[in-house]
């Protein structure tokens, strides 16, 4: 069964994934909205930057973050100047790393969802007297429910499975920065296969369940639309 450090790793993982997802939904909304509606030439460049974590080895991202967190790096220097503890090997360092790493998984579904709305519903809302924020709340949000569900689930699930970035910037401090994927790695290293199984199978099942939720919600949504 699960040992004390394993349970701690599970809780940290869940907390990390939930925090990261929440932050990404908040920051991803204006970013995705801008990408879906802008006519700016900078759009392609920004889209490419956001998509980088999809192709980049996580260790590359982790390496540069680690450099940035060091006392001479831009983030490390800033936190030091503000009298805050270093981000390296801390939970909030992990949140930052995960947020960058999972960014495309949240931004892209939102962007697709916003772009799919078309301009018509918003224009009509405007002619009926709704201002920009009113339009977003009364028209965009309810019509983008599926996009938000997909973004949240993908962001959450992707953060659950993170390994390379965490290893580079979080280290492996049990009860603090040790997440599930690293705990599994440790068990395998120590030849504790049965404990590795518990965690690995749990993660597998969990990932399957969240994906099942999206796809069945998606199906229900489509069925609802066509009836």
């Amino acid at each position, binding site marked *: 069964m699960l040992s004390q450090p394993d349970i701690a790793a599970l809780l940290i993982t869940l907390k990390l994934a939930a925090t990261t997802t929440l932050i990404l939904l908040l920051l991803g909304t204006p970013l995705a909205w801008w990408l879906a509606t802008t006519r700016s030439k900078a759009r392609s460049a920004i889209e490419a930057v956001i998509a980088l974590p999809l192709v980049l080895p996580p260790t590359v991202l982790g390496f540069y973050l680690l450099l940035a967190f060091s006392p001479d790096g831009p983030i490390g220097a800033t936190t030091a100047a503000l009298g805050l503890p270093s981000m390296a090997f801390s939970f909030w360092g992990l949140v930052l790393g995960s947020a960058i790493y999972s960014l495309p998984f949240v931004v892209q579904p939102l962007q697709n969802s916003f772009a799919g709305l078309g301009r018509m519903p918003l224009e*009509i809302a405007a002619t009926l007297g709704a201002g920009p924020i009113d339009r977003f709340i009364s028209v965009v949000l309810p*019509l983008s429910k599926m996009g938000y569900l997909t973004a949240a689930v993908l962001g959450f699930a992707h953060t659950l499975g993170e390994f390379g970035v965490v290893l580079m910037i979080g280290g492996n401090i049990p009860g603090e920065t040790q997440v599930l994927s690293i705990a599994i790695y440790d068990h395998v290293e120590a030849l504790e296969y049965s404990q590795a199984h518990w965690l690995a199978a749990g993660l597998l099942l969990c990932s399957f369940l969240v994906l099942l939720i999206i796809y069945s919600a998606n199906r229900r949504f489509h069925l609802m639309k066509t009836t």
Partner: protein
Amino acid sequence: MIKAALQLRKSDFKLEASFSVPGRGVTAVFGPSGCGKTTLLRAIAGLEPDTTGSLSVNAEQWLGVDGSRAVEQRRVAVVFQNPSLFPHLTVQENLLYGRKRLSKVTKPIETKELIASLEIEELLLRYPEGLSGGEKQRVALGRALLAEPKLLLMDEPLSALDQGSREKLMSLLERFLQEIDIPVFYVTHSSEEVARLADNLVLLANGAVSDHGAIEDVLGAVDGELSRSDAAFSVIEGQIATTQLPGLISVDCGQGIVLQLPDSTSVSGNRYQPGNAVRLRIRARDVSLCLEAPQRSSILNILPAVIAELAAKPHNGSRIVKLDIAGKQLLSKISEYSVQQLELRAGQPVFAQIKSAALI
């Protein structure tokens, strides 16, 4: 008054529209496909942010030196070609979307009455998904009216509908647009819709206004853009006569003019009860001229007339002739050859043969 001088450049299209029309009644924006009607409507609504120039609607400046008033501040409701109800809201929530956002309800449009006359009471709790095209468009019209707009814009609201729903909505519009005290801009390429609904006309061609004014002035301008086109037509008002000939509908246009039309209307119903006011649309190309009264003709309507005016010059081999029939004006499009052969000139008495007229 509604005064506009609008410029807008889109990749391969330029809109330059200047006109002024009365601040009440229905103004039809008429022209062939691709002439910029929809773009003009969007510019008036404020949905084209690159529009420059000036626009004032009944003394309110919507666009001018002080900048552009935001769409949501203009109180301009739009009914688009494709009824775009909010899919996540019920019919009732759709209807009230604009009204809820009014700072105060100024005109006493009775929600209940409006819903009843649009015949959508049964639909209130349903979602737009399952509604027919005609039902959706009626809800969209109700939603626009309940927002108490200062200007109502309609972009070919009938063109996406089937014949039956179109006729039904048309009759509703005829009644509504005259009753409401809101100026309406109505974009269409159908001369029938113009003839039935419009008080004023703005003619568009290639992004520019070629003529504008009261409908009878624009339609009656023999040298105007519309008269030169194939679509030239006249509108004569009358009422269904009390005595009818078998198989015919008689329309009394006053001054002793009675026009006969074949009773082929499957849609007749209550509209064609004796005494009902109707409008007739008569295409200029369906009116020919004779110097003497023809005998034993198959043409039902032959009326004595006086030539009021001839177009200054022929266009594509034809000439537009404006006739005066007991004070009513009627356009006739005949070949330039006939004009020369018959030596037609202003002031000359002739007989107008009306080959067909549409009861609209």
